[in-house]
Structures are given as C-alpha cells and as structure tokens.
C-alpha cells in the first residue's frame, strides 16, 4: 500500500472528485427541500427547483409590469456598470501610484506610511461618510469600491515592483534608459500581469462592497434586488441571484486569467513545454 501522499487521481478521477462536492451540496438541498415541502407545501425557505425556475422566468424573461424593464438584466447591467467603473478607477490609480512607490525612493518615502494606514480603514465604516459627501446615487457606490480596493492594489503593486531584481534596473540604466523609459519598457510590461492577478484577488471584496452599498441605497442592482425581496422571504429569487452573481464573478476571474495567458506569453516561457 503506497502512502496517500504519493497517490494521484487520473484524468477522470479529477473530474469525479471535483464534481463530488457540487453534487453533494445539490443532493443535500434537494432532500432538505423535499422534506420541508412534504410538511408544508407553502414553505418559502427551501423552494424546489421548479419554483426557482419560475421566479427566474418571471424576473429575467418577462417585462416588469410597472417599468417595462427585464428586471434581472437591468439589475445586472447596473451592478456591472458600477463594478467596472470602480475597479477601472482603482486599477488605473494603483498602476500609477504603485509603480511610482515601488520604483522611486522619494515617492515611497512620502506615500508608503500614508497608504499603509489608509488600507487599514474599514471601508464599510466610511460608507455613511461617502453617502453624505457624494449623495445617494451612483457616485458613492463607485467610490466605495475604489476606497475599498485601491489601497490593496497599490500595496501589492508597490511590493511587486520593489521585488524586481535591482540588477535589471541597473542594467537598463547602463543601456541608457531614462526613468521614464525604464518605467515604460522594463517595469510596466512586467507589472501588468501582476496587476491583473491582484485585480482577480480583489474581485471578491469589490462585489462585497458593491452589494453592501446597493443594499443600503439604490433603486436597481443585484444587491438591491436581493435585499428588497428579502422582505417577502422570496428565497426563489434570492438563491438564483446569488448563483448568478457567483457565476459573473467566476467568469470575470476566468477572463482575466485568460487575458494574462494570451497577452503575456513570456510568463509561461520556460515553464513546462520548453
């Protein structure tokens, strides 16, 4: 009998073991739901799949009688718009400030204590401030994402930039590179894939801030809808929405990973096939 640390699943085994927890969770839900429904056919806590499908058909594929919108798509659009705007601003700011902090000693000396403290401010605690300052509409939600995500991105990028071998920076100078040229040709191209990875890691927090802000003050959006229908205990809407948000986050993470693999072939060079 070989040790378990030396035994590896085959191709089919990986699919099987990977699928097992999903199937287990689904089965657990189906059983629990059936049991509750057998006791009380009007139970709202664990609705059957058919009820969820009906709810999705109602909110996603029939226009809302009051506004004429397809609610789920309007919510998705509104949320993605806020999320994209917030993450875009955060990424751009982190790129500029992070590289400057990592590469230029004076910028690091000036900003790193400030950013270190700033990143410890709990973003949710300043949400009321944002609502007061920026109003209750779009801006404050976008700003919450920016405030919540940017310090992490800056610190990560500054650290990665600082980790570039000093030899590379010296070599670039002996090739006649100015600070600007070194940033453009040596540092930036190597930091972009790192930044994309950092953005992937901050997708989770970004969704958290978005849904929190929408829950408190919004008129549309995925988070708004969930917290609205909560009042009616509408689990048949909430659960598909949660699944949908999860799917959106998963797909955006996957696309960013794909982007890195496509645009930065040197990342994989020398590892594996070569």
């Amino acid at each position, binding site marked *: 009998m070989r040790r378990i640390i030396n035994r590896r699943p085959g191709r089919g085994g990986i699919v099987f073991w990977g699928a097992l927890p999903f199937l287990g969770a689904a089965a657990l839900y189906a059983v629990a739901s059936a049991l509750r429904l057998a006791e009380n056919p009007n139970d709202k806590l664990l609705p059957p799949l058919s009820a969820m499908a009906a709810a999705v058909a109602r909110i996603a594929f029939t226009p809302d009688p009051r506004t004429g919108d397809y609610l789920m798509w309007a919510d998705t659009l509104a949320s993605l718009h806020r999320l994209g705007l917030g993450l875009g601003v955060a990424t751009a700011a982190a790129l500029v400030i992070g590289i400057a902090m990592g590469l230029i000693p004076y910028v690091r000396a000036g900003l790193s204590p400030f950013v270190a403290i700033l990143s410890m401010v709990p973003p949710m605690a300043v949400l009321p401030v944002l609502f007061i300052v920026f109003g209750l509409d779009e801006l404050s939600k976008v700003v919450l994402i920016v405030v919540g995500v940017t310090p992490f991105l800056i610190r990560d990028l500054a650290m990665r930039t600082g980790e570039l071998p000093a*030899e590379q920076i010296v*070599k670039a100078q002996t090739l006649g*590179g100015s600070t600007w*040229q070194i940033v453009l040709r040596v540092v930036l191209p*190597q930091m972009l894939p790192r930044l994309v990875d950092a953005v992937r890691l901050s997708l989770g927090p970004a969704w958290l801030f978005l849904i929190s802000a929408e829950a408190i003050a919004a008129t549309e959006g995925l988070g708004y809808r969930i917290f609205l229908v909560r009042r009616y205990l509408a689990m048949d809407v909430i659960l598909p929405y949660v699944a949908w948000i999860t799917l959106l986050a998963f797909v955006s993470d996957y696309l960013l990973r794909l982007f890195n693999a496509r645009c930065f072939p*040197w990342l994989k060079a020398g*590892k594996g096939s070569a």
Partner: protein
Amino acid sequence: MSHVSVRGLWKEYPGQVVLERVDLEIPSGEFCALVGPSGCGKTTFLRMLLGQERPTRGGILLDGRPLVAEPGPDRGVVFQRYSVFPHLTVLENVILGREFEGSRFLGRLFGARRRAAEEEAKGILAAVGLGDHLRKYPAELSGGMQQRLAIAQALILKPKVLLLDEPFGALDAGTKAQMYELLLRLWSERKMTVFMVTHDLKEGFTLATRVLAFDRVRVDPTDPGAYGARITYDLLLTEKTAVQARLATAGRPRETQDRHGTQVAAL
C-alpha cells in the same frame, strides 16, 4: 579611450570599513580580474565603478573626468543573474539599448530605424552564437546562453568599460571554456577596458592581463569592521597579452565550431 584612475578611494558603511586607500591606474584596454575572499569589497569596488554606489572618500576618473555617479551607457555590465529582461525576446533584449537611445519618449523604434537596429543586433547575436534563437524568451535559454545574451545586450552601445560581476559563476566547466574564448575575442575586437569580479583564481589568471587581489591587511580581532580591504597584489601579466592577441586572431576560424557547442580548449 577608456583610462580608469582610482584616487585614494575609501568606502565605509556604518560601523564597517570595506575598502581603504585604493589607488590604481588602469590604462585603456586592460582586462582586470578582481579576486579575493568573500566580503573583501570586490563587488563593492565594481559597484562604485558602475556608479551604483558612491565612494566615501576619494574618487574614480574615467579618461580624466570624474565618473558620473549613476549607471550610464559608457559602462556596460553583466551580472551573475537577472541581467536580461524576461519579458523581451532575445532580439528585443539586444535592441533595447538602441531603442532607449533613439526614442526618448516611447523607448521604442519603428520602421526602418527598428530594422537597422535589428540588423545590428543580429550581427552581435551571431557573434555570441545566438543567431538561431532570436525569437525565444530568456527563460527558454540555458544558463550559458542567457549570459551570452547579457553580454550581447551590453555590447550594442559599445561601452568604454565592461563590468562583469561573477558572470560565469553559475555555469558548468565546458560552458565556461566556451565563454572564455568568446569574451577574449570580443575584448580584443572592441578594445574595451574590462573589470571582472571572480572568486575563481584560475579563471582570473586565464582571462586577465592584470590581476588585482583584494584582502584585509590589518585585522583588529576585537572590532572586525575597523579596517577595510586593500589591493594586496597588483599583478601585470604583460607577457600574456601578446600571447592572447595571437590566440584571439588565430581563434577566429573556430567561431563556427564554438557555435555548434563543440568544446573549445581552455587557454
């Protein structure tokens, strides 16, 4: 011309003297090997030549003028590792020097100027035996090939002084022998002044025309940092210069052999 003068050089870190009273006159075209035990200031000395660190006292003159206090295109460098850019192909790594020079704002050349730089780079890459690997990334090359790339990259701007910090420290014996021949050929063709830090005495004596040994002359057992290292031996291997000049010219037909990876006899 690339005459290097070192005048009364001292280097101190807080609580530690690294180098004391170094005086040197290195005529143009000399190949200097810096040898000595670890931690005796060879690399610190090289860094000061490079402009990466400043002397505490004294100074270094290049052709009679004080050395610019930061790394610049008059001094090329090859480190033991990390000298090439992992995100650029072999060809892009070498033309980078020309791109910095020719495009102030973008650092990137296009069209005819890029093609000219590429042709120049291909010439140098062929000379170091990398002519068949232009589109590869450094991670796809072996250690010896990466060092040859680093040398090619440093040579495109025709530096007056070439600084080598244990460039062959991580290579196997066969590869080293090839690199020695390559380096001597390039050195005799381009008339550069070369400074090479090495911990391998044999390597130093094989390659250099002048061997500078660094060591601490005085040691205070109660305060190990009190005294710094000095140049204890300054050996001119003048007779070898003539032999090497002959070898370098005679060695030219062997270039193709070298490129196919046949081991070349050490000198």
